[in-house]
């Protein structure tokens, strides 16, 4: 049972070159990287190491420990299993045959290739996204998204969500601790109530969280009104986010295009 969950802000403060780069630039570069990696032909194995080196170099420049980035990717690994069937169902030369009694199933070479490629791409993309959030505080990221013409309502709501995320998550943790404190067993294996009852109690906890958040939002609205809110969302222009380094973007774009080209040629 999760008694001690704490959401942690992925941002790691620093003064490296990467940290100082404009948020908009970083976001666009990250998206470019993601696109390049996802679009890279499966069999372009000679290019994947280059993509990896890009990550390692950036992490080094940003003075971010690779271990912290790798931790964020562990979350998604089980999802990789969803691609497991591809080992067997993609037609091609069988490279491994598994058989038991009358049934046999062949692992095909293209299947293995695709499975590994999906895993590699997934991992690389997560590292890139993790690097982005490790070097850019949320405020700036939102401002960057805003500058890219995302709807103001959404970015404003996201900013508010971020502000209250930790507070409300703490409430959720306390609810679970309170429940744990009253979850005692007289003897091993007895009690616990039925699954349906436990689910209902969890629902009550969710309901409590939601209602309290509702009231909180009313208080926030009152506070905003007291400060002159008239319905229009206005945010401080963030100089950092608007700073877009066109040269860096062009170089980045060129690099990504080259990698894709190489990938297509070097299959």
């Amino acid at each position: 049972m999760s008694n001690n969950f704490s959401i942690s802000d992925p941002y790691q403060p620093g003064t490296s070159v990467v940290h100082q780069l404009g948020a908009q630039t970083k976001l666009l570069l990250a998206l470019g990287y993601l696109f390049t990696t996802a679009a890279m032909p499966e069999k372009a194995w000679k290019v994947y190491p280059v993509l990896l080196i890009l990550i390692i170099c950036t992490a080094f420049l940003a003075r971010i420990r690779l271990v912290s980035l790798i931790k964020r990717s562990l979350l998604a690994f089980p999802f990789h299993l969803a691609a497991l069937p591809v080992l067997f169902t993609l037609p091609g030369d069988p490279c491994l045959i598994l058989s038991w009694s009358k049934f046999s199933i062949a692992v095909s070479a293209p299947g293995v290739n695709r499975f590994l490629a999906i895993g590699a791409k997934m991992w690389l993309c997560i590292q890139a996204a993790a690097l982005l959030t490790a070097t850019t505080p949320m405020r700036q990221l939102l401002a960057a998204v805003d500058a890219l013409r995302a709807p103001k309502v959404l970015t404003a709501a996201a900013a508010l969500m971020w502000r209250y995320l930790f507070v409300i998550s703490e409430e959720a943790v306390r609810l679970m601790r309170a429940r744990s404190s009253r979850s005692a067993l007289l003897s091993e294996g007895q009690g616990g109530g039925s699954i349906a009852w436990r689910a209902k109690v969890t629902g009550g906890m969710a309901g409590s969280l939601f209602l309290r958040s509702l009231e909180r939002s009313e208080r926030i609205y009152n506070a905003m009104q007291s400060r002159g809110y008239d319905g229009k969302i206005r945010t401080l222009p963030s100089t950092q986010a608007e700073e877009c380094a066109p040269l860096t973007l062009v170089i980045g774009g060129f690099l990504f295009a080259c990698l894709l080209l190489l990938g297509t040629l070097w299959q």
Partner: protein
Amino acid sequence: MFALTGNIMAITHEKMIEIQDLWFEYPNKRIALKGIDLHIHPGEKTALVGLNGAGKSTLLLHLNGILNGHGTIWIDGIRLTANTVGQVRALVGLVFQSPDDQLFSPTVFEDVAYGPIYQGLPPEEIEARVRMALNMVGMQDYGDRAPYHLSVGEKKRVAIATVLSMQPKILALDEPSAGLDPRARRSLINLLKGLPHTMLIATHDLGLVEEVASRVLVMSEGKITADGKTEHILKDKETLQKYLL
């Protein structure tokens, strides 16, 4: 020789709570508890005072295994381990600071019944326990009400009832009188005075300490810096000045 030993054994109390060299570090590397040693005797009502951040809440969370530090804890002679946590939670009723975090059922009755239901008690027993607990806190007519609509004072009393229904031997309370108006506070103090349980109460409310607790532990920066009878500690201006005021 035997007679002498016999006498010593008669004098020694069985410790209700015993903690040996408890250390605890938060994930962000902050060391919240630095070698806590304490023991509390059955029936003793002890107050835990100290500034915010001294480690009071952290200490309370160790009593029923929600947090696990380094060191040993015995509750009513049972050593607290992963295997015995279930038992210990029936012995220690932990009441948190904010009642809203503890009342998560649609009705007061269901909230107070959570503990007994989880323990797998038969329906008649559950009903009896709930009635008893609500009576003890003076909320017997509130069974059908939604906790959401109660006043802070009423919620605090229901929160206490939610642990009383498990018939614990120890009550651990975190800031019970915080946020209460004078009348509700008076009501709470009387309630705590009347309950027979061993208690460990973390609080800033020195008036409550004076009325309810017979013993005071002063905490500062993760350590217990003073331990003595209420009358002595509250008169010890030097200690209070140094660690509390």
